[in-house]
């Protein structure tokens, strides 16, 4: 393997990994605050990509405006999902909300199949994103540079919101104890709605990025990336925002490098990610950066 090919593999891994990281951030944020694995994240992700498509093709919006509109619209969908499917279950055992999340995931996926049709759609990409740059025999896509930077910026922004703002204080309080937070005057429902809005906006952003990299829209497009991001989040320590980024990037690298060094194992790429999940859960269930959470009795 020449050095150029290795570099190209590493760049491919970085692109894939930072996309996983981007999806995982939203996953992990909602989990960190509500202890709810929002399985509908994959579908929110898909909606983000579709909304941009509709914005550009149906409403003829300029591309940047379509991006912005899609993120806002999807954030609203997230808030709505919380209101309809999770809020009524706030006092129910945690497993009920989890099952409700799976229900929302299937519901949104099937609604999308009926409304958007299962036929794959094309994705609009501005020309400056289409052409790879040639750097000494290595082909670098503009997205390869953009996505990691974007992921890290979002991560920093999110850490700022959670640790340095008032709603963030509410989020952290809720993550410790919902009932006590409510007693202390935290507007629980608003803060949780905000959490979902923010999480969904992140999902939309990652869906849009994904669609720019893999330019094709399908109602089931979120499923596999969603699983992978979930694995990345668990790997990095679910609930930890920097952990999600690290987990995502490492998973991306591992997936690409396993094919690079063991081409015969290429068909097992997906299986490999799930094996990683099982191993992490067995050996270090808290992941790389996750804190051990004490069960409150």
């Amino acid at each position, binding site marked *: 393997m020449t050095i150029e090919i290795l570099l190209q593999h590493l760049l491919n891994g970085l692109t894939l990994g930072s996309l996983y990281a981007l999806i995982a951030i939203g996953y992990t944020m909602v989990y960190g605050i509500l202890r709810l694995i929002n399985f509908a994240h994959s579908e929110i992700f898909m909606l983000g990509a579709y909304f941009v498509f509709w914005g550009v093709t149906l409403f003829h919006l300029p591309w940047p405006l379509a991006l912005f509109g899609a993120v806002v619209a999807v954030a609203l969908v997230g808030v709505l999902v919380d209101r309809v499917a999770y809020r009524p279950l706030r006092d129910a055992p945690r497993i009920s909300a989890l099952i409700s999340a799976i229900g929302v995931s299937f519901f949104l996926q*099937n609604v999308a199949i009926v409304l958007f049709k*299962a036929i794959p759609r094309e994705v609009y990409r501005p020309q400056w994103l289409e052409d790879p740059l040639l750097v000494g025999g290595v082909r670098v896509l503009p997205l390869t540079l953009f996505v990691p930077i974007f992921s890290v910026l979002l991560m920093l922004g999110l850490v700022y919101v959670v640790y340095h703002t008032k709603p963030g204080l509410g989020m952290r309080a809720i993550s410790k104890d919902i009932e006590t937070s409510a007693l202390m005057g935290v507007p629980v429902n608003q803060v949780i709605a905000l959490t979902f809005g923010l999480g969904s906006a992140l999902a939309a952003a990652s869906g849009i990025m994904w669609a720019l990299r893999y330019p094709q829209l399908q109602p089931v497009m979120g*499923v596999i990336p969603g699983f992978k991001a979930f694995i990345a989040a668990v790997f990095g320590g679910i609930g930890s925002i920097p952990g999600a980024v690290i987990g995502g990037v490492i998973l991306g690298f591992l997936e690409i490098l396993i*094919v690079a060094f063991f081409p015969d194992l290429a068909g097992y790429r997906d299986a490999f990610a799930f094996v990683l999940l099982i191993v992490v859960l067995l050996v270090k269930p808290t992941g790389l950066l996750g804190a051990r959470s004490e069960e409150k009795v």
Partner: protein
Amino acid sequence: MQRALWMAMVLVVLGSLTPAWAADTVRIGVYLPLTGQNAFGGQLELEGVQMAHAEVGEVLGKKVEIVVVDNKSDKVEAANAVKRLIDKERVHAIIGTYGSSLAMAGGEVAEKAGIPQVGTSCTNPLVTQGKKHIFRVCFIDPFQGAGAATYAVKNLGLKKAAVLVDVANDYSVGLASFFKRSFTKLGGEVVATLNYQSGDQDFTAQLQQIISKKPDVLFIPSYFAEGAIIMKQAKELGATFKIMGGDAMDNPEIVKIGGAAVEGFMHTTFPYDPSMPEMNPVARKFTDNWKKAHPDKDPNVNAALGYDAYMIIIDAIKRAGAAEPAKISAALAETKGFVGVTGLTTINETHDAEKPVGIVLIKDGKKTYVGSIQPEL
């Protein structure tokens, strides 16, 4: 309330006792992937069936009814769909399906019940192997794989091939191995075989590996949606080799999704395409009627196969003289020189259709029918 319940129950029991077979309609079940991964193909095939049904709605003086069930691109759903068509809908014959994995799952059920099934675009040899009641209007993958290999070696003079296979898909695995067999037999060399799984969207690692092996041609026996993004990523990584595929790439949408990346792509298909210079009268009529019914989209080979599947069953019922499943099966097995949209079709002893292999090239953003060839097996 209770009385109403009783009456309803009695009605249900009575209803299930009276076999629909006795009625004076001919019932043809259709199971196709109308949602899920393969919906794009299933939808087109259904439209083909419906067009044929609109043209010929009667056989032996009886009305023909079609019953459509979605198999959701899922093997288990496919088996359930056929079970429902047979047990509940009491169909005389079944059309289906797109996708070899699905046709195998459904065919197992139809074979047991003794109801004839005519496959549309399921090309894996195993679909009809050892089955009495399972047929198809398409050719099979050894034939098609050999077609692609023959064209690559003989017509294009290519020597080194790489193959990228979806290991979770029987069609892809089969076609890849038949392509490789023929390619080596004709004197070429297969320099790389890489795998992926259905649903994957990142192929960069596999493509990078293939690029480093410097093949002349990459054969991708995948469905068109995956094929289009494989080609996009190959182009982004700077691949310059030729790319070829199978009949599952035959979809007008491929140009829309793949854009400039699919330029120069070639694939094998059934000998029908709206861009064909010469057409038989059936194909001509089909193309004209389609354009009237769907002015916004071109007909494709899936629609044509759906149409042919329906017509070949009607033809068999006519020759059998009765709409009884066993007689239809016997007549289907004897189909010779049936003129369909996809050319002159003869059902051979393994219940597969014999017809030449068509070659399509994407040129200037348009599908162009290059011609048909006789594969060297």
